[in-house]
């Protein structure tokens, strides 16, 4: 067989080096080509990750046993010899950027699996890569400032051979490669601990989709899961985003999923802050309160798995209880006597707006005991019958505070058979206010001052007061207390409210979440997010067959919805479980779906390739097939079957 010259660009020789030419025959297999190449370059190194890329055909020659003939390669082929894993700059859901080596030769689905394995994120099928939104970065070269975490030194695990461990073994609570050095440990912390609230300017500078159509454009950026990065023109050191693509989070277990949970939370937080998902003002305040709480708690209890910490606490609490009980001489009545409930006593001013007389505030001696407030004419008369006793159980408590004006009001709405009684308590100073406010809050939930959360409640009220102070100018407050409340809500509310006005509203919502552990708070955030009506919708602008205008298709974990662009209303809903089959006509790029009851729809996609839509639908159907009975191994083949295009089959 005749020998001919094949020229191959060897990437490792530098961009300007001429191609290496070797003499081959058509029946030489690609493995042989590689051996010849390596011999010719005379460079000694580990070539095991290298492979041949055929530029014109946009494909890798990964089957080393195939001959050149079988591949159809002739002398005019432009081949490049290069590593399959190359560095990539990856934007994470938490806004940080990581540089790591990703696989450029396998389908993106596997590339993502590799990345997730490195990060210790379970269920990589829920994530994917997309091209980032171009930033308007003319003004300043902020990129120089950006910190890039380097993970390129992490040894490559051997591709897809190792099955994805559902319960990865950890070293010191993290994958072994993160335990190597302090540097690496810091990166793991960055991955597994939530980021502090962003500065308000950062939020307002970010791109915010203004309409459903804007949101639809984002979804045109997803990479094709069944093709490799090279085939999608991703170059070495390019920037991509890693995001949760399918909003169907399976089996979240905080014990194994700290990174995953943190990143889901970060993605959810940004979705809220950037109004990617719409919510009401009340919901926004609650999200804000949770963010505040999460950032506070994650600073104070770094790294420990909160669940085990909670267990320890319980353990030690029980222990100390036992010790206490041993100390006492056993009789229960004695115990009871010793447990006198704490109380608050002070002069406060009271005002009842209901009474028409404009008496204003009157001062009395107040006593807070159990869940009730009683008041007397004076301290001296406090032994006798109170003028009135008010049980606060089930009441509504609202703050009315202006630190600058030294106004510390507690507004109480107290339920009674006849309706709600409104009354105000006026405190003299911060300390007094914090204590009585905390007492009222607990009492409204039926807890007494003896409750263990009393002190922390006081603390959180004080820190919120401190927030108001810093916002109003004095920079004295401790730095860790000074979160600008504008960092916790979307820019819409920056315009609507001053931080000062926002603080009491967030504090109001905060009282319901203040006792949550970090994990519980993260989970609560996700739950509220998932309960939003628009949660989990990915939009695509489509044109239905027979229709003359663009409409929006919303793809959710369990259904498709058709939205009229003009009105913004949902016109129609189709659930996947009624779906009989779906087809893609790749020639005219049209999707056709058949539902039970002879319902047929067909549409072409405007803002995204129909492969992306096809993959979304197939992907969600794949997600719904996961179950514990089938084990935790990822059925990759099924995924490709459901999402692949015609090439894949």
């Amino acid at each position, binding site marked *: 067989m005749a020998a001919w010259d094949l020229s191959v660009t060897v990437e490792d020789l530098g961009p300007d080096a001429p191609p290496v030419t070797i003499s081959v025959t058509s029946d030489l297999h690609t493995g042989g080509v590689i051996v010849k190449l390596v011999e010719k370059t005379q460079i000694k190194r580990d070539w095991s990750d290298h492979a041949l890329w055929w530029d014109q055909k946009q494909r890798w020659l990964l089957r080393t046993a195939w001959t050149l003939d079988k591949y159809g390669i002739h002398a005019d082929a432009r081949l490049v010899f290069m590593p399959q894993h190359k560095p990539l700059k990856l934007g994470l859901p938490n806004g940080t950027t990581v540089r790591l080596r990703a696989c450029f030769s396998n389908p993106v689905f596997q590339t993502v699996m590799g990345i997730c394995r490195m990060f210790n994120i379970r269920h990589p099928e829920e994530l994917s890569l997309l091209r980032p939104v171009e930033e308007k970065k003319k003004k300043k070269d902020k990129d120089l400032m950006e910190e890039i975490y380097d993970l390129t030194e992490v040894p490559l695990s051997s591709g897809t051979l190792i099955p994805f461990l559902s319960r990865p073994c950890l070293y010191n609570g993290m994958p072994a490669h993160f335990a190597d050095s302090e540097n690496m440990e810091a990166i793991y912390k960055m991955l597994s601990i939530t980021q502090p609230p962003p500065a308000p300017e950062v939020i307002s500078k970010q791109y915010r989709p203004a309409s459903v159509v804007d949101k639809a454009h984002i979804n045109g950026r997803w990479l094709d899961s069944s093709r490799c990065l090279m085939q999608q023109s991703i170059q070495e050191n390019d920037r991509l985003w890693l995001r949760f693509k399918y909003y169907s989070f399976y089996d979240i277990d905080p014990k194994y999923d700290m990174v995953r949970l943190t990143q889901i939370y970060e993605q959810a937080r940004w979705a809220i802050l950037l*109004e990617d998902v719409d919510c009401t003002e009340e919901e926004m305040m609650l999200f804000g309160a949770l963010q505040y709480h999460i950032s506070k708690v994650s600073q104070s209890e770094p790294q420990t798995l909160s669940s085990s910490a909670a267990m320890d606490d319980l353990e030690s609490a029980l222990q100390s209880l036992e010790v206490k009980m041993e100390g006492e001489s056993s009789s229960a009545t004695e115990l009871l006597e010793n447990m006198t409930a704490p109380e608050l006593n002070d002069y406060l001013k009271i005002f009842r707006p209901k009474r028409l007389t404009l008496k204003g505030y009157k001062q009395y001696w107040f006593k807070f005991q159990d869940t009730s407030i009683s008041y007397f004419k004076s301290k001296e008369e406090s032994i006798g019958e109170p003028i009135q006793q008010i049980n606060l159980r089930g009441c509504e408590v609202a703050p009315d505070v202006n630190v600058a004006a030294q106004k510390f009001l507690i507004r109480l709405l107290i*339920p009674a*058979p006849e*309706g*709600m009684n409104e009354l105000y308590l006026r405190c003299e100073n911060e300390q007094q206010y914090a204590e009585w406010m905390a007492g009222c809050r607990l009492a409204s939930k039926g807890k007494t001052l003896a409750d263990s959360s009393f002190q922390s409640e006081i603390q959180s009220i004080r820190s919120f007061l401190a927030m108001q102070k810093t916002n109003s100018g004095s920079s004295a407050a401790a730095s860790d207390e000074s979160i600008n409340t504008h960092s916790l809500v979307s820019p819409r509310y920056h315009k609507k409210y001053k931080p000062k006005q926002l603080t009491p509203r967030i504090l109001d919502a905060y009282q319901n979440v203040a006792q949550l552990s970090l994990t519980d708070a993260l989970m609560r955030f996700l*739950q*509220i997010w*998932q309960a939003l009506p628009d949660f989990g919708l990915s939009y695509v602008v489509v044109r239905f067959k027979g229709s003359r205008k663009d409409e929006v298709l919303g793809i959710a974990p369990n259904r498709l919805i058709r939205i009229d662009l003009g009105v913004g209303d949902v016109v129609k809903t189709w659930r996947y479980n*009624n779906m009989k089959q779906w087809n893609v006509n790749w020639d005219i790029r049209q999707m056709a779906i058949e539902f039970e009851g002879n319902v047929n729809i067909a549409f072409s996609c405007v803002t995204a390739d129909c492969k992306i839509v096809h993959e979304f639908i197939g992907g969600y159907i794949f997600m719904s097939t996961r179950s514990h009975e089938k084990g935790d191994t990822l059925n990759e083949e099924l995924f490709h079957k459901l999402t692949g295009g015609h090439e894949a089959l």
Partner: protein
Amino acid sequence: MEDIDAMFSDLLGEMDLLTQSLEQGTVPSESLPTIKKEVNFSIGFTDLNESLHELEDNDLDALMADLVADLNATEEKIAAEIRGLEEPSPPPPDLPPPPKVLSTHPAPSSSSPSSRNGSSSGNVSAPTTSTTSPLPPPPSQSTKPTKEEMEAQMKTDKIKLALEKLKEAKVKKLVVKVLMNDGSSKTLMVDERQTVREVLDNLFEKTHCDCNVDWSVCETNHELQLERTFEDHENMVEPLSAWTRDSENKVLFQERKAKFEVFRNPQNFYLWKKDKKTLKDMKDKDKELLIKENFCSTSIIVPDLEGVLHLKEDGKKSWKQRLFQLRASGIYYVPKGKTKSSRDLVCFVQFDNVNVYFGKDVKNRYKAPTDFCFVLKHPQIQKESQYIKYLCCDDAWALNLWVTGIRIAKYGASLYENFKTAEKKAILSSAWTNRSTPSGSSSSTPSPTIKVKAQSQANGHASTAQSEPLAQDFGNPPPPPPPLDELLPPPPPDPVHPPKPPSLVHKPAAPQRHNHSNFPPPPLGLDNLPSPPLPQPIDDSSEPPPDFLPPPPPNTSYGSLPPPPPPVNFAPPPPPPPTSFGGIKQSLPPPPPDPQFLPPPPPNPVFTGPEAPPPPPPPPPAPSPAPLRAVGRPAGSVKKMPPAPPKRTMPALPGGDGGGGGDFMSELMRAMKKRSDQ
């Protein structure tokens, strides 16, 4: 009336004295738990007195019976405790005592023997009333523990006790009159910690209804003409304590289809926009999927409701229309001239501090546009107020959608949990009733003494604890026995029961309850009845053992029978049986006893006769013989066992023998009920 009141306070005073005397002596941990009950009682006194005034005479009779039973129980306990003190460790001499235990738990014994081993611990925990809990520790101590260990054990027990006491010290009890559908009423004692579910279980016992999931406890507000179904997980006393003193509010016991409709036809709520026909033809598979999607994921999904409702303006009699939207975080409306986008919505109400009620007769009362009205108010508001929000829907369908949607938003996962519990309960009870019905009630109704009645009612408390365990194993109606074991603190009784098993098996649910009610004192009674049990058990045991002894040898457990009792101390009888069963047939532990029992059935009737008059004594005898027989026979005749198994496992099958027993039990119950009602 006043006389009765006086008697009441006398009784209560006596009980106080009793309990005090109990506390003085350092009582072994066992007795303590029971004491607590009485303590609560006296503490709740003031409340009781208040509520007593509203009672009618016959109600008082029933309550009196309860109290008397409690008193008796206390006395018995004291006696038992004294005995216990004299005889520190109950090893060999204890043999007699075990029978007592058994006798108390005749019903429980029916439960599968196999479960006994594991169940013992479960039993302990199940009865919150505490009688059981104390029991477990002693046995372990007696068996091996060194003195130090025992001391440590005692200490931890004491700590637990003290903790419990602290908690119970403030427990308040209410006497609640519940109106039935037929206009009659039942009077219940509800303690502060009881949930509506527990109260429902109590009512099931008292009414013999079919226990289906729709049975609900509802509250009506007379003054406001409102009505609300309590959710099963809610605390019962709390909403009732919001009632004003003179209120004409009522508590009803009724079937409410709407309560769990969302779990039977989730499509009606989650896909309400679809046409009625699609909804009606929804496949079960799709319904399940809907429930899974909305109730079983990380987050509970609230149906996306949206619609125009009529809102009564604050304090006025005028109504205006608004476009309302239900979200997980509350009800919102769209302000005039704004879009429906989330950010423009105005919050109308959040659910933390309000409950949802049905409003009645609003057209007349408030000139409402329709009578399909739901009301949101703070539970403590009992009278007309501007803080009550009235909303009217256009039709009943929409009203149902909104009220259910609000309940999902407010209660979330608890609703589904409630449903699952109620469903299990219903399945279990239906299985049992099936069995019991076939059996004819030939046995003469025992003449229940006042004591018996009283005891049964007193047990009511204990029964509440049981309800939980029952619920757990609903999936399998046949397995009812296991739940019983859990319910019945004293596992040992199981072995004893073999004689009675038939009856027990047949009517697991009903009998069990009945037993409880009838022999509520068991825990107490057992302890208290040392004298009668001793002689009988001994006799029985002595007789059968010799006969069986030969066969037993094969089983290791059997051989040890005599000695085993001591180690187990409390549960001497039970331990052997379990082991023997296990040895004989691992998979079919229960069956063996049955076949063997077949012969015993005759004895059972006999028993019933004697039992009836002196409830406490009879049980002991039965148990003791039974255990022995069971043990001996299994070993001896392995082949016979196989046939029996089906009976035990399958509640329905054992209609014959069990039926008879069940009837007897139910008759007894009925008799007691009658008396108490009178």
